[in-house]
């Protein structure tokens, strides 16, 4: 296990390093330093001004030197200075991250509980009308692009039903530390949007895994011992069925923490996804690098946790 962990951590670091090189090259070879400086300088800037900016942002140095500066400070916890915010990238990220974390964790609670509960219902009463409707609903939401669902929710809940439902603000964000009630109100629609499109996978995953488990010999043994069906389902069936759900949840949460770009854009949530789109439009390179590295870290760490959890949950897994 220790050897496995060391190998996985080494791989994770390698992946993060390659990602940083890839994104760095993508932006420096792509628009090129002159273009970045020109965007920063504005449309009416003189060539001298552009050259000055290029020098100030260290964009005139050789590429390897720029990368070296970046990674050296990054390893010391300093991700550089945003071209536009007048703040360090660390500050920008520290402001955006809580928004995304609120969004993703809240939505994850909804999508996991909804997905697992509907999955169990579908599996226990498999082929019933209930199962069919839940499976159809899952397919429906799975096929629904996030922005279509989000706009539909805004349209129906915030506009069409506006005299009835005055409590669905749909643009902006209030920090939980400022006003927990408003934090909740502003996040209901984003949570619902993100949760509904994601939950479909969980309904079907739980249903499938539950059906497989309920066909196992030990379930038959439990039943023939005279154990009440309720206990058979919850204690024996559900527990074993949840391993793939845990895996999927880990990976999904890890990916979403890197920025739920569409949901954040749609509801004006200034999280990591929203900030990254702004940074890409402004060619704010340090911020892009910071967000990509943070997102990649979330994914890599989530993968690591899932691998370890897998070994803990399922004693048959050996490394």
């Amino acid at each position, binding site marked *: 296990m220790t050897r496995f962990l060391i190998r996985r951590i080494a791989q994770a670091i390698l992946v993060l390093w390659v990602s940083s090189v890839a994104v760095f090259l993508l932006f420096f070879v792509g*628009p090129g330093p002159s273009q970045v400086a020109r965007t920063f300088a504005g449309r009416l800037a003189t060539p001298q001004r552009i050259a000055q900016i290029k020098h100030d942002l260290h964009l005139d140095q050789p590429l390897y030197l720029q990368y070296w500066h970046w990674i050296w400070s990054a390893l010391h916890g300093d991700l550089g200075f945003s071209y536009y915010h007048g703040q360090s990238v660390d500050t920008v990220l520290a402001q955006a991250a809580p928004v995304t974390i609120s969004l993703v964790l809240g939505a994850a609670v909804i999508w996991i509980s909804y997905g697992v509960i509907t999955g169990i219902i579908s599996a226990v009463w498999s082929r019933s009308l209930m199962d*069919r409707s839940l499976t159809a609903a899952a397919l429906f939401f799975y096929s*629904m*692009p996030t922005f279509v669902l989000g706009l539909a929710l805004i349209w129906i809940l915030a506009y069409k039903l506006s005299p009835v439902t005055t409590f669905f603000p749909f643009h902006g964000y209030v920090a939980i530390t400022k006003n927990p009630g408003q934090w909740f109100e502003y996040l209901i629609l984003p949570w619902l949007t993100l949760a509904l499109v994601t939950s479909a996978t969980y309904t079907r995953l739980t249903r*499938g895994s539950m*059906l497989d488990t309920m066909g196992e010999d030990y379930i*038959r043994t439990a039943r023939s011992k005279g154990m009440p069906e309720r206990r058979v389902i919850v204690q024996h069936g559900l527990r074993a069925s949840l391993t793939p759900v845990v895996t999927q949840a880990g990976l999904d949460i890890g990916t979403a923490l*890197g920025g739920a770009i569409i949901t954040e854009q749609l509801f004006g949530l200034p999280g990591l996804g929203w900030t990254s789109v702004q940074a890409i439009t402004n060619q704010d390179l340090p911020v892009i690098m910071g967000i990509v590295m943070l997102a990649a870290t979330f*994914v890599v760490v989530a993968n690591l946790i899932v691998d370890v959890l897998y070994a803990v949950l399922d004693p048959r897994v050996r490394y």
Partner: protein
Amino acid sequence: MSMVPEVGTTDTVAVAATTVTEVPVGRKIEGRSPWRLAYERLRADRAAKIAFGTIILIVLLAVFAPLFASAVGHGPNQQFIDIGENANGGPVPPSGTFWFGTDSNGRDLFIRVLYGAQISLVVGVLATGISVALGVLFGLTAGYLGGIVDSIIARMIDVMLSIPFLLLAISIAYISHPSEWLVILIVGVLSFTYLARIVRGQVISLKAKEYVEAARALGAGPWRIMFIDLLPNVMAQVIVYASLLIPLAIVSEASLSFLSVGVPPPTADWGAMIADSSSYFQYGYWWYLFFPALALLITTLAFNIFGDSVRDAFDPRGGGLFV
């Protein structure tokens, strides 16, 4: 193995199984290949038929969009400033002239939704083609050659998966010149990873089989073994996954357009139309959002239902991506 075989199968497959096994009296009993079995199961699947019919209809509407345009007399990018806009310059509601109403530029939304189907289908199919080609190539090489090649491909996939798909896609789209081909390339290249992993897994278990050993004993080189001996045996998996990849590619394309880094205007595109409508639909211009969104939803739903049925047909036991 489960003791209760019925549990893992879905209704449609159960129905399919009974119809397939009913051989009429007097008919010759013959062996059927897995492909034929899958095809017969698919034909007996009612949901698959409806979904396939819908897909055909969408394809026809897309192909004949210019015919509709000339029949109605409205071009996809033609602005009707006089009759296509209301007194405030806003869109006009659905009517006999404009079946789906008009957009904020006074263009016929019905014709634009039809033209939008072209982009969605072309991007969906071509991007999936790229993903499949790359996925098969990398999966086969990683699985068959193993060792250092496998490690390099595995880490490369890890890197691609560690950067959020949309973040990478927007970055590439933003620094390049936007075009339809760029969108196809981005969506196609960025989504081969999952297929590559599936193919790799399959190949690792297949390469220990006797027929591969026999091929090697006969002097077949690695490329011949990979593409002549192994590829046909992973094809079923590839087709299943490809059919589920098309709707994903369509959604990715629409998402890029929604974030205004997709196919550049004035090309009619569902994602872009929905993005345009998002500052209008609240003020009563519901049709502007409704029709493009409905078209997109019907398309992805049809492809997903069909892809699901294809998967059931090849693997009636269930499991895999979906049940």
